């Protein structure tokens, strides 16, 4: 369903992706792990066409994203839902308008119908009675849930999660993991998650891929990754400062 072939991306002198190749099958949950600044978010933004590769191709549903004009890309994006790390809620509108934003823009539904659907989606992510609140009145966990409700409002086929558990307490993080699993089971979506939270990765992934130095260095089931002999992957999943991974700005 999603395929990245030899994707390269640089920002001025900084080469972030150096030939990433990744396949995501329909209905699969792929988690990309990697350290801070390893290019995980850049990779995710390529999948939805927010960034264009300098070299290589991104294919979604047999369509090469580079061949699409703006309208074609927007049409394809209707298949996606994305949960941002910071939730990225529109702070000038109440929760229900945030959730129903896509419906308002791309359907002819009335405001009352949109609000009804928004309330239903909010209920799906475990929120009741918040539809008229402004995003500034919500806690971090609630904002993530509203972001997720917005992502699923258009009933997407693919869900992208950018660090879904970052900044949440362990209980709220686990609740978000449960929600991600629930979304996959009830909506049968394909999902790509980027995270450095290994507990979350083991819980939600069918496949875990590790991004390091701009390439995917390992890929496998959670069990395979847990038992990998690769010293770089081992250092990362065990969360050790000592090892082959060089931490920028840290002198050892």
């Amino acid at each position: 369903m999603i395929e990245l072939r030899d994707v390269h991306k640089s920002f001025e002198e900084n080469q972030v992706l150096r030939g990433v190749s990744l396949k995501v099958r329909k209905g699969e949950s792929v988690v990309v792990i990697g350290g801070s600044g390893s290019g995980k978010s850049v990779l995710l933004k390529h999948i939805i066409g927010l960034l264009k590769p300098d070299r290589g191709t991104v294919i979604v549903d047999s369509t090469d994203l580079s061949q699409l004009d703006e309208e074609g890309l927007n049409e394809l994006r209707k298949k996606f839902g994305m949960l941002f790390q910071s939730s990225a809620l529109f702070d000038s509108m109440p929760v229900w308008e945030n959730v129903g934003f896509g419906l308002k823009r791309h359907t002819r539904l009335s405001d009352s119908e949109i609000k009804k659907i928004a309330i239903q989606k909010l209920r799906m992510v475990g929120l009741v009675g918040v539809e008229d609140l402004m995003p500034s009145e919500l806690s971090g966990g609630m904002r993530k849930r509203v972001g997720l409700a917005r992502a699923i409002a258009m009933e997407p086929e693919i869900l992208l999660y950018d660090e879904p558990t970052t900044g949440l307490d362990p209980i709220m993080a686990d609740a978000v993991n449960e929600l991600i699993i629930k979304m996959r089971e009830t909506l049968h979506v394909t999902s790509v998650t980027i995270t450095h939270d290994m507990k979350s990765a083991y819980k939600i992934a069918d496949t875990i891929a590790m991004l390091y130095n701009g390439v995917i260095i390992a890929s496998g089931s959670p069990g395979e990754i847990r038992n990998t002999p690769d010293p770089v992957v081992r250092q990362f999943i065990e969360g050790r400062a000592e090892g082959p991974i060089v931490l920028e700005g840290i002198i050892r």
Partner: protein
Amino acid sequence: MIIRFIEFIGVLMEKPAEGLGRFILLFYAVLKGIARPPFDVRNIVRQMLEIGVNSLPVVLITAVFTGMVLALQGYTGFKRFGAEGLVGSVVALSMTRELGPVLSALIVTGRAGAAMAAELGTMRVTEQIDALETLATNPVKYLIVPRFLSGLMMLPALTVVTDIIGILGGYFVTVTLLGTSSKSYLRATWNFLQVQDIYVGLTKACFFGAAFTLISCYKGFYTSGGAEGVGRATTGAVVFSSMTILISDYFLSAWLF
């Protein structure tokens, strides 16, 4: 030596040239957004309220006091050679041709332009603009086109209000405080004021409205670097817009003279 000098100039010009190119591309995207339906009328009206109606109090106060000062200074100067009767004309011509559009534009830039840059800048650094794109919404059409159109329409409207209130401020000082007859002030106003003067002022206002919205939106839209970046974008929007208004004012005046 010469090659090094050319290289130095090239490096020096790289960033400004890149910025100018991006600005022109943004302007092109805005024009494309205007030409292509659907039109987000609700959003345009909201921006018209923000730029136009909410700027009214500060524009009114500025206009009335500018008119009053012009009348006071004009009266003091003209009295020296017995031409007090021309105060009305000076106030009317200054307001319609020059001060109406320029003052309105500078005030609205300080208020609405800064707000636009800060709002769009915050949306950029909090990934709200990325979120718009993931929701299959063109952010230029959704965020910038309504602001651009509102600036283009509301600045001339504010200029008309500024002109009228400025002339009334001049009337108050000349007639009520300095004792010139009402008839003579109004005659001096109407006799010398031509449609051309109002047309010149409104043409300037349209240009300033388009310029400050585009510059402010550009600064906000391409913000990077968190809260500090938003601050930089806001300051840059006000400084660049104000400079553009003041510099272009001379060239527009020379062109429309």
